């Protein structure tokens, strides 16, 4: 595999496009069990990411990840801003100086990201947050063999499974049992995150 600066930029563009398209949907999900801004937050942040990284020539993925993290941190706000910001800052640290990533590099990077997210947000598996997508997906990524279609369906299934969970962290936790029956917005945006990543990886692997 050859996942470098160009691929990261492509990933960010595709992810941003999807988030812009799904802005209203994510916001509706957040209206049901939160405060209705998740779509706005994500769309605002990744729009800015795409703009910022498009005007800079990056030598390595690490510095690109770092910029993405900083943009998210300073543009998203809410709970998702520090969490997605942490994702990229921790990943950047892990792949510092690398011009191209292998699957195992991605695994190491996102393992660090997940740790960071859990440390900040103190959420565990089953708390109905983005962690419910992240944990199984990162575990699969750490395995020997990664099939990107399987990766996508794994993310999707776990995203869908958040519907039946009771929220224990984040704004939805205030709802208690009444949060059951709704998808977690951050799990859905995390699904987009991984699905768009996988599409780029699949292309690269096939090339």
């Amino acid at each position, binding site marked *: 595999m050859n996942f470098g600066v160009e691929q990261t930029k492509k990933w960010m563009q595709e992810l941003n496009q999807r988030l812009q398209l799904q802005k209203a949907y994510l916001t509706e999900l957040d209206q049901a069990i939160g*405060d209705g801004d998740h779509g706005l937050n994500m769309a605002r942040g990744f729009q800015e990411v795409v703009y910022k990284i498009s005007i800079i020539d990056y030598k390595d993925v690490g510095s690109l990840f770092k910029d993405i993290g900083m943009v998210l*941190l300073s543009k998203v*706000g809410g709970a998702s801003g520090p969490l997605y910001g942490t994702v990229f800052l921790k990943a950047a640290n892990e792949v510092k100086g690398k011009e191209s990533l292998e699957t195992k590099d991605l695994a190491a990077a996102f393992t660090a990201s997940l740790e960071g997210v859990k440390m900040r947000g103190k959420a565990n598996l089953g708390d109905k947050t983005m962690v419910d997508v992240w944990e199984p997906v990162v575990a699969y990524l750490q395995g020997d063999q990664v099939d990107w279609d399987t990766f996508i369906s794994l993310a999707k299934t776990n995203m869908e499974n958040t519907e039946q969970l009771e929220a224990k*962290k984040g704004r939805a936790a205030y709802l208690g049992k009444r949060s059951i029956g709704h998808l977690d917005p951050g799990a859905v945006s995390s699904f987009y995150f991984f699905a768009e990543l996988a599409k780029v990886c699949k292309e690269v692997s096939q090339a």
Partner: protein
Amino acid sequence: MKKLINNPEEVVSEMLEGFVLAHPKQVKLVPNTSVIVRADSPIQGKVGLVSGGGSGHEPSHGGFVGTGMLDGAVAGEVFTSPTPDQVYEAIKAVDGGKGVLLIIKNYTGDVLNFEMAAELAEADGIKVAKVVVNDDVAVENSTYTTGRRGIAGTVFVHKIAGALAETGASLEEVEAVANKVIQNVRSMGMALTPCTIPAAGKPGFSIGDNEMEIGMGIHGEPGIERGEIKTADEVTSVLLKKVLDDLQPTQDEKVAVMINGLGATPLMELYILNKKVSDLLKERNIDVYETFVGEYMTSLEMAGCSITLLKLDNHLTELLDAKANTVAFKR
């Protein structure tokens, strides 16, 4: 969406500009940020107080920046916690060498963003302390979850911690009194109508023509009971009972009361609520030291209210009484 705005994406920056243009003697904007600080910030030898959160709760928090209350207020996008870099700018702008207290409403986003900002500031050598306000008894407290939300009671934290900071007290002392307020303040709210985040363009939820929602959060987070609209007296009884059950003031204790409007509720209605609050407290022999009626912590143009009680001892009373001169709170 019926709003007097220009561009939904620019409401926060235009509001902040309009705010400092209106009150240049009292406040200024830290350039290129969404941070409001006192016109004379930083004040040397005084603990700095910073609060903030999503916008849409005006006059919170910019309206409480000034003598005897906050030094700085950070405004996020509407209903979205401000980012760490902005909070960090606020901390730097108000630090007068004695450290800075962050007053955070208990929402994951606010807590995370303020925490990260605190880490940045501490790395610069600024002493930072944090308190988290969780006065909303609508949502059960549980150690397994996020805990209770922070709502209008936050204004009492600003007032009392701000008054102590003004005396030259240390960061630890100011933090301690802020925590004392937090331990003694409880609130609960309800809504009659929804509100619309400008960038979303339509209401975040809907409430039937004959319905109201008890326990609604100030960002439109669902409450605990959706039901037919009740009379002012019935609503007051429900809200006050939950507050009293949790706060458990004794007969000889005195309290401060805040009847807070969420945005579209006329003062007339808030005073009608206060009549009942006053009657109910009298029945229980609870002594009302002072009553605040008005808009302190709003939710855009939501119709509804919250009721807050703060238990007062002599020290808190003295600090509540102390001079304050901010745009939205003067005495």
